[in-house]
């Protein structure tokens, strides 16, 4: 029988919660270095234009300004950045979107720097610009990004990236279909809105060419490489220190131009420079979730069994290509493998426009894909006259399944999760109930599939750990992984407490400095507790081997069956304090320290050129049943209750997990109902919290969370990654609930009050026509 766990599975408060709650935690905004300057960046006044001239002389003459740089500066010896290397750091010649950086200033104060920006004179030849990807694909459209390789790679100059995937025999499955539903979905541009705005502080040493960056990146080792490439430096000369990060959610996966710009200012001025974004800059500059248009055709046979999915997606890539262009990796998994799908064909095209470029955002394309899939499912059920719950249950994934794409579900909580929310929400009854008069109630379902054991998209998806047990029994965990608020370092401390019996007060987690910590790919793909947890377990195993051996020698007993608890190692009547063993190692012969070092690489594989293969260590499944009430007079949608059930493998820290659920849901509800960046001709019209509506405390519905434990052997204690999942099916479930309430289906997000009223009006007119 498995041994009983003492720490894992029980709620544990956040490791450095007291620092954060007392205002002592140091964020990027709080850093002040001696002699530090403040940087500001001049951005284009027009989203699409030719730059005729830039005159910085007045800015340079302003008292307090230390330096001004443009792309013509000597210090500007750089490479293009971004996933496709199609993004110049500072722009000259042409500007392609509202974010484009033209010049930057470093000055004694932020006020002086901002004033200097106003003194820079730029002459533009304004052009019309293309803001619709369909327009951009036309022959007569000009090439938007001069570095784009669309013509050679994809046969269209404005194509930034393209993916094709297929499995099964589409035509055969179409022929088998009793019902075929074809719909077009439109997804908005939304933003992370991290509560801390983006920031960076850079210090460059003229003595040895070393660079120190205090940065809120979520992927420090990839970032180190990116900065090095951008600035033609050696990566090892760059030290990344991560202050406490005030929210990430994917926004800090790409390196953005302001970061190398800050370094250039530091290089040129010879002083440390800090750049902090204002909230408006954060709205304009933070990468967004991809807006896209999805054409989805799906079928099922007369029993409701799914037959095929065929999907064509046009994504607005914006002017440059970030990691966001690779979201089809995740999207195609949902189309190919969320539920059993005998045949699937997937095409996705990211198209350059003069809009701002999209990036990565919690869920990575999956909320968009899931919205379309789950809405189509409801429509098929309706046409067949089948229950929305039943159609999902008969098609749900199961343990042991190898999907058409090659994902292997060694464990699978899809059916239990569905059953749980159907049951707890009394779904069938609520779904069939009369809907009310002015206030109409409805309920909707949504399910999702997401990677749960990392995702092999880089050459290594691993994580290193160094462990140090000192002479006094204190354990230092030096992990490659990062904490961005999600609670992974608490989980690591819990693992060490569980395995080594060391008290929390005696555990330190060090994870903020690339000069110190071993390699890790970074926070993304819900991977940190999984990968860093496995890495730590591997290191603990090595440390125990050392400790066991020493204890055997010290106590003169033959066993390797030591129990670690309360700071002691025990075997039958033999007992020794763990710090004593460490000291004896250090001071006894042969002298050695109680330190170990371990690297964990997940068992996942690269997908082949057809995107087939078992890309993750394991997979997470979840379902949500969401109840809403629609006010048919105001059009307002209120979320009354959320039932969420998720296959998390095993619950590690219940309170932390629940926090991930609630936080993810809040963002998911915002995506469904309120959040939208309003762009007109390449300009953002609502760059503030006043115009861009996040949920507030009064908008948050009760969340009923039912974890499903499937004990997947790949994960630490059987766990799976959980962080992104809670927001993935939320918009889908809400849209289905609103449609259940009103009898109208919504094909775009967010479902605002205006949209609801418009739909009700159209419905009324249609009904009238029918009557006439």
């Amino acid at each position, binding site marked *: 029988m498995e041994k009983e766990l003492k720490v894992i599975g029980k*709620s544990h*408060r*956040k490791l450095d*919660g*007291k620092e*954060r*709650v*007392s*205002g*002592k*935690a*140091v*964020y990027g*905004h*709080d850093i002040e270095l001696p002699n530090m300057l403040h940087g500001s960046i001049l951005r284009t006044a027009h989203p699409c234009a030719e730059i005729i001239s830039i005159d910085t002389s007045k800015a340079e003459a302003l008292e307090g300004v230390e330096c001004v740089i443009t792309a013509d500066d000597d210090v500007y010896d750089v490479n293009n950045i971004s996933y496709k290397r199609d993004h110049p750091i500072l722009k000259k010649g042409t500007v392609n979107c509202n974010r484009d950086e033209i010049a930057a200033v470093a000055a004694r104060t932020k006020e002086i720097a901002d004033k200097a920006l106003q003194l820079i004179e730029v002459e533009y030849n304004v052009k019309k610009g293309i803001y619709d990807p369909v327009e951009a694909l036309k022959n007569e459209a000009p090439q938007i990004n001069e570095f784009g390789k669309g013509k050679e790679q994809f046969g269209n100059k404005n194509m930034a990236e393209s993916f094709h995937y297929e499995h099964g025999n589409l035509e055969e499955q179409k022929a088998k279909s009793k019902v075929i539903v074809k719909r077009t979905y439109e997804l908005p541009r939304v933003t*992370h*809105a*991290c*509560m*801390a*705005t983006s920031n960076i502080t850079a210090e460059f040493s003229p003595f040895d060419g070393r660079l120190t960056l205090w940065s809120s990146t979520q992927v420090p080792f990839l970032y180190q490489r990116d900065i090095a490439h951008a600035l033609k430096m050696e990566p090892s000369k760059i030290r990344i220190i991560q202050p*406490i*990060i*005030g*929210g*990430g*959610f994917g926004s800090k996966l790409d390196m953005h131009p302001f970061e190398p710009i800050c370094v250039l200012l530091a290089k040129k001025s010879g002083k440390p420079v800090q750049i902090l974004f*204002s*909230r408006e800059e954060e709205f304009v500059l933070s990468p967004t979730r991809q807006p896209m248009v999805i054409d989805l055709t799906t079928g099922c046979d007369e029993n409701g069994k799914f037959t095929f999915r065929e999907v064509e997606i046009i994504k607005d890539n914006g002017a440059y290509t970030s990691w966001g262009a690779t979201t089809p990796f995740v999207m195609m998994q949902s189309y190919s493998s969320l539920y059993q799908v005998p045949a699937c064909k997937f095409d996705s095209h990211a198209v350059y426009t003069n809009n701002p470029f999209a990036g990565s955002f919690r869920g990575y394309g999956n909320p968009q894909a899931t919205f379309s899939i789950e809405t189509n499912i409801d429509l098929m059920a309706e046409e067949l006259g089948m229950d929305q719950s039943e159609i999902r249950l008969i098609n749900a994934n199961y343990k042991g399944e190898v999907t058409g794409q090659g994902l292997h579900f060694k464990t699978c909580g899809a059916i239990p999760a569905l059953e749980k929310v159907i049951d707890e929400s009394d779904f069938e009854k609520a779904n069939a109930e009369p809907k009310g008069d002015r206030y109409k109630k409805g309920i909707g379902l949504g399910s999702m599939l997401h990677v749960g054991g990392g995702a092999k998209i880089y050459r290594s998806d691993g994580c290193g750990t160094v462990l140090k047990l000192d002479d006094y029994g204190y354990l230092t965990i030096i992990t490659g992984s990062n904490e*961005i*608020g*999600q*609670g992974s370092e608490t989980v690591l401390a819990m693992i060490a407490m569980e395995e080594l019996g060391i008290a929390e007060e005696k555990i330190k987690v060090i994870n903020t400095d690339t000069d110190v910590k071993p390699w890790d790919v970074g926070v993304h793909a819900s991977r940190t507790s999984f990968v860093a947890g496995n890495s730590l377990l591997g290191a603990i195993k090595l440390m125990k081997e050392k400790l066991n051996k020493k204890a055997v020698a010290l106590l003169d007993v033959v066993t390797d069956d030591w129990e670690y608890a309360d700071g002691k190692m025990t075997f039958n009547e033999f007992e020794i304090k763990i710090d004593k063993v460490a000291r004896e190692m250090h001071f006894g012969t042969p002298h050695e320290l109680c330190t170990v070092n371990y690297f964990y690489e997940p068992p996942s594989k690269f997908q082949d050129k057809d995107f087939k293969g078992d890309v993750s260590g394991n997979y997470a499944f979840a379902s949500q049943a969401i109840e809403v009430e629609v006010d048919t007079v105001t059009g307002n949608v209120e979320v009354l209750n959320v039932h969420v059930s998720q296959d998390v493998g095993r619950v590690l820290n219940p*309170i*932390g997990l*629940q*926090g991930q*659920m*609630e*936080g*993810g*849901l*809040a*963002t998911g509800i915002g995506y469904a109902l309120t959040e939208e960046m309003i762009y007109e001709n390449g300009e953002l019209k609502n760059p*503030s*919290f*006043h115009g861009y509506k*996040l*949920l*507030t*405390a*009064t908008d*948050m519905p*009760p*969340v009923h969370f039912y974890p499903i434990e499937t004990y997947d052997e790949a994960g630490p204690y059987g766990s799976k990654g959980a962080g992104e999942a809670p927001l993935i099916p939320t918009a889908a479930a809400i849209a289905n609930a609103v449609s259940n309430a009103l009898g109208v289906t919504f094909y775009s997000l967010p479902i605002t009050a205006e949209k609801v009223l418009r739909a009700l009006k159209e419905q009324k007119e249609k009904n009238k026509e029918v009557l006439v």
Partner: protein
Amino acid sequence: MMQITFKINGESITQEVKPALLLIDLIRDHLKLKGTKPGCLEGECGACSVIVDGEAINSCMYLAINVNGKEVITIEGLGDHENPLDNVQEKMVEHGGVQCGFCTPGMVMTTKAYSDKCKKKGITPTREEVKKSLEGNLCRCTGYAKIIDAAEAVYEN
């Protein structure tokens, strides 16, 4: 320049300030109390909340000169030698109300002012009232549920 005298976290201070200086800048840049957070500087997010004469206010929308003769409490002013954390802070940590923590000082100060007022009046607010009291404070990480739990737990004995 104008001279103002005020109390901050129990200490009396006299300071020369520009009339246009914002309270948040006085607190963070002049007094170096970095616990008060700049989330938007537009009065929309509540991260910069501090307590002035018992009321939680957005320090980014408040002129520094207006604290003349008043008492200001920032996140650093909570707790004392014996109990380094105030009850509100203890509850936030205990109930899991802290993720990235950037909104947390603002959440704490708002809750502190509100709960002190309720206690003075001898009332225990409902959950709805607690939610309402937090409406001006945005959080992107937690979905508020645990923050509301914590703010409610402040009234437990």
